């Protein structure tokens, strides 16, 4: 037994200078209320949010690419229409999030510039290729499933505009996950080759999906502060565990095998024990050395540069119209 630490080791309230505004901020956080754009906030809180929300927005925008890859080759007109609706949603999610980040004083143009210059991060998951139609199923089921797990608690994030954007996004994501599940289920009810294709896609997406929750808690230095600020509500490992718990029975319905030989139910903890995640791979992909990083970024840069004349022409037209309507008035 160790003796408890002496209380004088802790700073007393009087010893820490807290401004009136900071005091109000702390009170709002303590009451689990919301911070709104024009409220005073610590610089670290603002920076954390800009980083997190813009990364999230970039992920949605880059995330359009692996699926857009299959729009022209979808197996039926219905599947094509669904896939287009889904990719359009991802674009919408990116825009909701850029809007939310913009209320913190960073413009969308600045965020886009950072992304195409390769200075901003986005979720490592979108740096994997999508070579088969079954990938559309596995992405919807596993990638969107993991995203939902991460995002539902973010609806209660302490920053008002972020939470509100997440509410909209979560409503739309559940369609994404269900349509992915349905694609896999149809393949699993199909020919042996189709079943094999579905299983192969699950094998490739399962581990990267688990990595979407971020590094393990003991290697996630910013998590504690984000949780103290009520931005994050659950730790990376908690959310990952919850996701695996949901995947197992769903995999049974599908008839696919999750590619983790160490995955088994632990009667004591009432949770699934899982195998070791390859964090070297995670860090490699995050550092830009994943299978599709260069391609994804180049595609985004080209789209932005190719669209420059449209943005400029529309702005010039708007200026001209404004001058004309003034002249008439």
């Amino acid at each position, binding site marked *: 037994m160790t003796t408890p630490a002496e209380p004088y080791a802790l700073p007393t309230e009087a010893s820490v200078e807290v401004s009136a505004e900071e005091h109000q901020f702390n009170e709002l956080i303590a009451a689990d209320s919301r911070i709104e754009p024009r409220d005073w906030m610590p610089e670290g809180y603002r920076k954390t949010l800009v980083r997190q929300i813009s990364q999230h927005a970039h992920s949605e925008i880059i995330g359009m690419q692996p699926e857009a890859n299959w729009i022209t080759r979808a197996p039926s007109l219905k599947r094509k229409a669904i896939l287009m609706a889904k990719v359009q949603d991802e674009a919408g999610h990116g825009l909701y999030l850029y809007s939310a980040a*913009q209320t913190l004083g960073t413009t969308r143009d600045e965020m886009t510039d950072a992304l195409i210059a390769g200075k901003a991060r986005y979720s490592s998951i979108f740096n994997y290729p999508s070579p088969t139609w079954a990938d559309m199923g596995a992405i919807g089921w596993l990638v969107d499933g993991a995203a939902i797990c991460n995002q539902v608690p973010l609806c209660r994030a302490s920053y008002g505009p972020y939470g509100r954007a997440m509410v909209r996004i979560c409503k739309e994501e559940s369609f994404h996950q269900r349509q992915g599940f349905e694609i896999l289920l149809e393949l699993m009810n199909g020919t042996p080759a189709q079943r094999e294709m579905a299983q192969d896609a699950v094998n490739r997406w399962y581990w990267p999906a688990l990595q979407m929750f971020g590094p393990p808690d003991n290697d996630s230095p910013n998590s504690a502060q984000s949780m103290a600020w009520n931005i994050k509500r659950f730790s990376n490992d908690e959310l990952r565990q919850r996701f695996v718990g949901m995947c197992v029975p769903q995999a049974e319905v599908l008839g696919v095998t999750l590619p983790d030989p160490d995955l088994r139910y632990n009667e004591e903890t009432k949770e699934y024990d899982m195998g070791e995640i390859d964090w070297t791979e995670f860090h490699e992909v995050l550092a830009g050395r994943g299978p599709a990083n260069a391609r994804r970024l180049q595609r985004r840069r080209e789209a932005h540069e190719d669209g420059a004349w449209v943005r400029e022409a529309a702005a010039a037209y708007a200026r001209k119209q404004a001058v004309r309507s003034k002249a008439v008035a």
Partner: protein
Amino acid sequence: MMSAPGTSEKEIWPLWEVFVRASRGISHTHVGSLHAPDASLAVRNARDLYTRRGEGVSVWVVPADAITTSDPDAKGAFFESPAGKNYRHASYYSKSEGVKHL
């Protein structure tokens, strides 16, 4: 006085705030913002961005820099007037308790 948060002169397309009427009988409610070169494209973008699932029967777009907001640093003083005036609420009047239709 300040305008809505997020506007910047540096951007090629200005920022617009979007308000959607969810159904007849309800006011337009703020749903978020978007970028557009002019008002008519802002309305179309608002339809595509905020009403993909029939969330609205009408949209308003307003240039974000045309909105004037109360000063956030003075919100205590600015909204002080109702404080202590609970006689403005029906619940202040307790003598009529038990009397019907009042």
